């Protein structure tokens, strides 16, 4: 089966109509799109700071105050998951077409 990349110099056109309640693609401006995902980036930076601080606190109090260490380790894991969730949405493979 031939792939589209086998014909790189051919202008192709297709039209697809789909029975779908929501639009498949959306139109926006570059600034609006970036502004939509900028809170995720800020959250990711914040949660990364939290889990590093809590991890350091957990190691620091490991032998002197184990209860603080356990709480800090739980918090570090909590914020690590939040950080990964924000980053997975930020680094999504969804296609974006922008113009110059």
């Amino acid at each position, binding site marked *: 089966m031939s792939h589209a990349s086998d014909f790189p110099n051919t202008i192709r056109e297709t039209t697809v109509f789909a029975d779908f309640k929501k639009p498949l693609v959306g139109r926006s401006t570059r*600034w609006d799109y970036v502004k939509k995902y900028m809170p995720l980036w800020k959250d990711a930076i914040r949660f990364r700071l939290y889990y590093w601080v809590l991890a350091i606190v957990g190691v620091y109090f490991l032998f002197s105050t184990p209860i603080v260490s356990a709480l800090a380790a739980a918090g570090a894991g909590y914020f690590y998951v939040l950080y990964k969730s924000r980053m997975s949405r930020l680094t999504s493979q969804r296609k974006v077409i922008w113009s*110059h």
Partner: protein
Amino acid sequence: MTVKTISQVRAEMHAHSAGDARGHDAHGHEEEKTFVPLFVPMGRVPGSDMMNCRGKKVPVHTTDILTRGEVMEEMTDDSMRSGSIGTIYKAWFLAIVCFIITIAMMFVNVYVAGVFAYLTGFYYSERLLNSSWSIGWFKGKSLVYTA
């Protein structure tokens, strides 16, 4: 979700000629469809439309097809003169730090304070430069994203 060929849809539109002016059935959910016209120049003869960009020969194109991750990586890049939002935050932070050091150094050594005053102005101008490029210039450029 059902994908139909254009001939099938045309046949249905003729069948629903009692609907609105576009041929849609007024009682169906046809009017909820959204059509986004977009011209993407995909075909190109290699070498015919090339330009110099940072010492490299790159094809001239008006659109880029990226992923969301690549878009956000480009916009949050923090290297100086990259014209991205990450640089704006970085230059703003460095300008504030240099301003605070300038005020503190005024009571210690006025010449060292002068150096930090220069750095304050430099980073503040970098902030303005990057924000005018990435926000000001590219603010209204169109963008199509998959929902």
